């Protein structure tokens, strides 16, 4: 599994794991994020059960497993958190932050030793080392209980399925040509995102944040002006198009 450091400064680091060459063809490619701050680590959307082994091996390159005390699940989908039952066995004294709405569902993946910290609808802030991370509401984008993660220090927004693109296997980690990238994300957003109103509320909220990078759970990372371009593009896009 490929690991890419996307931010590093003074004991604060963001790493993305993805583009797994061993991944089975019919499994959608996912980006797993890890934030390390002052020796403490959190895994954001740690991924599906099929990716657990390469993910664990990849993480062990960067941090002691015992330093991972927190997990975050933006929502309940299997590609996000179906590995929970295995993390539950490997992590000690760990906490999973996930939408309150999905607690009874996510626990089906196995959550005996990990504590489930239910994120309220309005979101919340946690501290990782000396830094803050904010869980920003992204309800109905696409799940009915859904959060993005904002890091005000690194100015990174982990946007979950918002900004996701279904790319070819060898695609670069960063969006290189926004207009060309649209073809990989347009259908996804139109079909997976159910509500124009929810979309607009999220865009308005995110526009108030100072963002250098927006990193989705599938596809490539938006940097600099591409973040604004994406928000403008999404604002103009009609979603929920499968309604007949």
């Amino acid at each position, binding site marked *: 599994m490929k690991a890419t450091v996307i931010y590093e400064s003074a004991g604060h680091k963001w790493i993305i794991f993805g583009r797994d060459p061993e991944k089975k063809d019919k499994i959608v490619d996912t980006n797993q994020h890890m934030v390390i701050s002052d020796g403490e680590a959190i895994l954001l959307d740690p991924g599906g059960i099929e990716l*657990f082994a390469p993910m664990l*091996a990849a993480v*062990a*390159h960067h941090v*002691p497993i015992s330093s991972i005390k927190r997990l975050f699940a933006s929502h309940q989908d299997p590609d996000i958190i179906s590995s929970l039952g*295995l993390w539950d*066995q490997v992590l000690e004294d760990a906490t999973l932050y996930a939408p309150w709405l999905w607690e009874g569902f996510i626990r089906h993946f196995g959550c005996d030793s990990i504590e489930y910290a239910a994120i309220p609808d309005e979101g919340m802030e946690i501290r990782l080392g000396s830094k803050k991370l904010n869980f920003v509401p992204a309800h109905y984008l696409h799940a009915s209980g859904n959060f993005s993660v904002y890091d005000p220090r690194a100015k990174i927004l982990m946007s979950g399925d918002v900004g996701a693109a279904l790319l070819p296997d060898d695609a670069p980690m960063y969006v290189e040509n926004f207009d060309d990238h649209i073809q990989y994300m347009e259908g996804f957003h139109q079909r997976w995102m159910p509500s124009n109103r929810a979309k607009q509320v999220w865009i308005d909220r995110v526009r108030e944040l100072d963002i250098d990078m927006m990193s989705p759970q599938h596809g490539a990372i938006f940097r600099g002006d591409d973040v604004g371009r994406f928000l403008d593009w999404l604002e103009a896009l009609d979603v929920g198009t499968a309604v007949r």
Partner: protein
Amino acid sequence: MARAIDLDKSKFHLLAVSVAADLAEVKKQGEAISFEAMNAKVLVVRAGAMALGFKPITDFMVELADNTIDLVQDIEYEALTVSHHSVSRLRTANAVKMANKALDLALGNKARYQSEIKAFAGKTVTSDARVVDSVLEHAMKLIRLLKEIAELMMAANAVAASARVEAAALDAHYSRSFAGVSDKLDQCSKTVRDKVNNNIALLEKALNV
């Protein structure tokens, strides 16, 4: 003693569920024996002194039915426990597989903190062994209980034979009635024995005992 058990190959979790499902029929037969015992008791009262020899037989049938139903309840509990642990075992076996895969990758990539994955892999093997032990312990208990029912049904067979002898000594009307009770007892015991012996054989084959 169980040995060389491959719970995955035997699909033991499915077997435990099928044993539990089969017990519904055994319970039904136990209730049928109980019903026949009640019929026989009424017949004994009606027949009066000439059917006195039948009294201990009906008492035994009641006891047999009660014991069968009680045993079925114990067996149901054990079968569900085996089933539950067998499903847990699917998870622990998967954890062993995943941990070993992660360890191979970490060793191959010379991951800095590979020792922690090694410790995790060891932990998954221990957990898996604990669950397998638990499956075996409850499965052996299940077999013991099933054998107890099979023995009860052998006794039922003997009782049915005695009942037939007693029935033959009565007048034609009561003889037919008591012979009917005896036949039904025989039939119930055969149905239960077939079911139970089949399940014992399947469990013993799966456990290689």
